[in-house]
């Protein structure tokens, strides 16, 4: 059996400090402020939901954490080390993996080969042998219920399977934190339940999850904590029931009642 998830390094056991810490991050695109002064802390073992209306800045915040976008100001720390402004591949190798909102498998590779890329290049130290990478990839596919499709071309998968492939690839990098960007979008209720089960199983194996999601029913059942963004700002952060009952949150989603 291969250890899919790198065991929590002893260096991260620095008391109760957050695993991932976003401090006063702002991201501007020209005149548009996509993320405005947002702080967010994620502790090991949590499932944090990040919700908000379209255009609230959730995906942009994810891209800042994952190293795809550089923040205009503010800091991001992972295991106490600053990661803001580092390239995406370095952030991944440090242990923060992410899935794409629009799934992008490598079209001319098999499902297994897709996951092997993550196994080869994820969090250091990595196994160098092809055989070891194959084992890690198989384990990730098995975990995600895709083992039977290992030898199929990635482009033949259904949307639901592609979304699980994204998760399998991220998992094969051996991450401490996985950022899931709308992995439930476009799935039917059965597929949604399977994916939620998968996310819970990931947490049970020691992976910390931050998930952007529009399906509020799913988020309420899944997350230990929810942060809400609207118009680039964080407007609430706390336990699911209290956050979803918050007047500001309801106003952001539904608008205010006319007087």
């Amino acid at each position, binding site marked *: 059996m291969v250890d899919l998830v790198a065991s929590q390094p002893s260096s991260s056991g620095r008391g109760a400090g957050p695993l991932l810490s976003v401090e006063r991050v702002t991201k501007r695109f020209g005149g548009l402020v996509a993320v405005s002064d947002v702080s967010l802390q994620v502790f090991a073992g949590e499932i944090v939901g990040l919700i908000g209306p379209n255009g609230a800045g959730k995906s942009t915040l994810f891209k800042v954490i*994952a190293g*795809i976008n550089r923040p205009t100001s503010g800091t991001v720390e992972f295991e106490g080390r600053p990661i803001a402004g580092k*390239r*995406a*591949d*370095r952030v*991944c*190798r440090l242990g923060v*993996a*992410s899935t*794409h909102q629009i799934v*992008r*498998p*490598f*079209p*001319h*590779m098999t499902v297994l*080969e897709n996951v*092997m*890329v*993550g196994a*080869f*290049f*994820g*969090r250091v130290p990595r196994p*160098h042998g*092809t055989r070891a*990478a194959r084992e890690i990839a198989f384990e990730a596919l098995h975990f995600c219920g895709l083992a039977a499709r290992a030898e199929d071309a990635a482009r033949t998968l259904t949307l639901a399977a592609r979304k699980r492939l994204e998760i399998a*690839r*991220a998992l094969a*990098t051996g991450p401490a934190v996985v950022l899931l960007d709308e992995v439930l979008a476009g799935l039917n209720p059965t597929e949604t339940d399977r994916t939620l089960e998968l996310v819970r199983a990931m947490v049970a194996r020691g992976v910390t999850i931050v998930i952007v999601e529009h399906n509020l029913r799913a988020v309420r059942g899944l997350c230990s904590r929810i942060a809400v963004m609207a118009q680039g700002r964080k407007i609430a952060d706390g336990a699911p029931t209290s956050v979803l009952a918050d007047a500001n949150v309801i106003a952001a989603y539904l608008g205010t009642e006319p007087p």
Partner: protein
Amino acid sequence: MSKVHVARPLIAAAALLCAVLVPFAYPHAEYALDVLFLIFLYGAMSAAWNIIGGFAGQISFGHAAFLGVGAYATMILWSGGWSPWATVPIAGGLAAIYSIVVGVPSFRLRGPYFSIATIGIGEATRLVALNWSKLTGGASGLTMAAGPPPQVQYLSALALCAAAFGISWWIVRSRFGFALAAIKQDTDAAQTLGVDTTLFKTLALALSAALVGIAGSIYAMHYLYVSPDSVFGFSTAIALVIMPIIGGVGTVWGPLIGAIVYTFIREQFAVKLANADLLAFGLLLVAIVLFEPKGIVGAWESIVARRGIRKRAAGATAGG
């Protein structure tokens, strides 16, 4: 499946052994030896181009620059009193260093924009060679009186070709090859999975340029003459792109097949109809782009696949 995996390296080893024996078995077949020399030299360059252009998907129209750097390095040192063989590693090393210097800024561009930049690199290098007459002899180039015997040239081209294909064979099975394939298919997705895309593109380019630079060294020993228009010319750069495309971009053996077809067509037309070879290559390229983007190897594979399906269908009917 496993039968094929054992058989292919064995066939390659047997073919290599036969090729090594040719100059000993037929010491007087000078023309045939010359044609085979060209096939192996161009085969090596074609396989080298395929590392960055085929495996990593970064189409370069500037590889003549690396051929020229290698060829000039050998000519300059050789005329300065060096043994030509001692210049071989220097030719490869200089070409690799030059490729890193010009490649790192070019890799900030992607897809067709990168390709356009490589055209500029090739032309700029040619102009430098043309005008730096103190070092390069300017437009008239550099010449030497006599080189190594043809049999030795043949064996060195064969060794380089075998090395280039051995490296290609290894790449597609390795972690390095996975990085290049991921970069080719989706650079952004590769990066989010931890692939240092700039590093691996640069490594692939340097490896490719080193092999082409060594080919340039052997080229200089063969022709005993290098000039900006011969080694740095745009038609040389295009030849390096045409061969792998004819044979099969991104496949291991396609570049060798492309080099054979290329050398054959060129030799035929050189005798009968000068410059009509360009027309033949043009038509061939159009046919490949329209019908079989993976070249001759791709066409062969789809024929085999179709036969397999037919056989299975026939077996199913017979069994049922």
